[in-house]
């Protein structure tokens, strides 16, 4: 999944308009970034990239970029 695809998918998870998220957007500023969104993101990433996100690692993320990094194979 490319950066652009990830951001688009993340916008859909959060149900916010396309183009409203940047790579540097801080997660704590996102109103819809809650546990329901986290589970939905885990499901989307697993289905599209085959990567299982760890809840602990998600909790350690500060920005959209940090989340994107988690989806990349180590």
């Amino acid at each position, binding site marked *: 999944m490319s950066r652009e695809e990830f951001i688009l998918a993340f916008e859909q998870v959060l149900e916010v308009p396309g183009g409203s998220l940047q790579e540097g957007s801080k997660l704590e500023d996102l109103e819809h970034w809650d546990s*329901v969104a986290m*589970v939905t993101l885990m499901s989307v990433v697993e289905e599209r990239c085959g990567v299982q*996100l760890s*809840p602990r690692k998600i909790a350690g993320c500060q920005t959209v970029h940090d989340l994107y990094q988690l989806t990349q194979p180590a």
Partner: protein
Amino acid sequence: MTAILRAIECAFPEDVLSTEKLSQEYPAWEVEKIDRNTGIRERRIAAPDQCASDLAVAAAEKLFASGVCRREEIDFLLFCTQTPDYFLPPTACLLQHRLGLPRNMGSFDFNLGSSGYIYGLGLAQALIDTGQASNVLFLTADTYSKLLHPRDRSVRTIFGDGATATWIPREGPGGSIQGPYVYGTDGEGGPNLIVAAGAFRTPHSAETSVETTDESGNIRSADHLYMSGMEIFAFTMRVVPRLVRDIMEKAALGWDDIDLVIFHQANRQMLEHLRRSIRIPEAKFHICVEQHGNTVSCTIPIALDDAMRKGRIRDGSRVMLAGFGVGYSWGATILRWQAA
């Protein structure tokens, strides 16, 4: 001689907690949005003086009223619950008396959640196959609503109360309970779905009743149910695909041989995700969460009963059942329906 799943009856409290009602109570929760994901529209909530055992009695009485079995035939009672009447005596013993069941009968409670139905079927088969019992009454009931903090959105939108009664004689028409079984346990996940206080490790105290607000704005204390939705989701993704593979391997069956799959009905989002990642054909996957939500050990028999009523199970049908959750604990088995 083999154990047969002959009949299922379900019972629910009268009080309905609809999505609309939750939305009115907590407009900020965006319950409508959550329910689009979970697929849950209604949950039944036990009255303050209504225990899991009361619901279990109602389910069992429906079984007797249907004429499929008689009280005096029963020689074993299994009761799966995590919300008993008392620490002791076992609720199953009280149920023997309340239901007017024979005294020369074995009975006990076992404490499991979403995997409980699989374990109960396994126990019933073991009792019957070894000649220890001939006719098992298997009850499941829980009132998780009593464990929830009213302002904890993460659990109030999901859980509902209910009870089921399954009649398992050793012969006759129905679902043949012959296994195989796959079981699993991982206590490392215990803290992710827990009521931390109130038993003996951490008895109730002024400290355990202190309320805290988590980062999602949910309020609870150590006396209430805590669920890490994300951890539970990650656990099911790790465990359930392998569970399904293992039970099919053990049974030497492929997808062509399985007619219906019934998982623990946690919520629609999780079920759909599991279905897609395991590649279970949609036509073979039963979802039944809308009216009762997650009723823990009751979801599999509720969904099985629903599938039978909808004609999705016929003579010769093979049905895969899989439960997974609190513990962590999981299990799966396959039933074969037969006319006689």
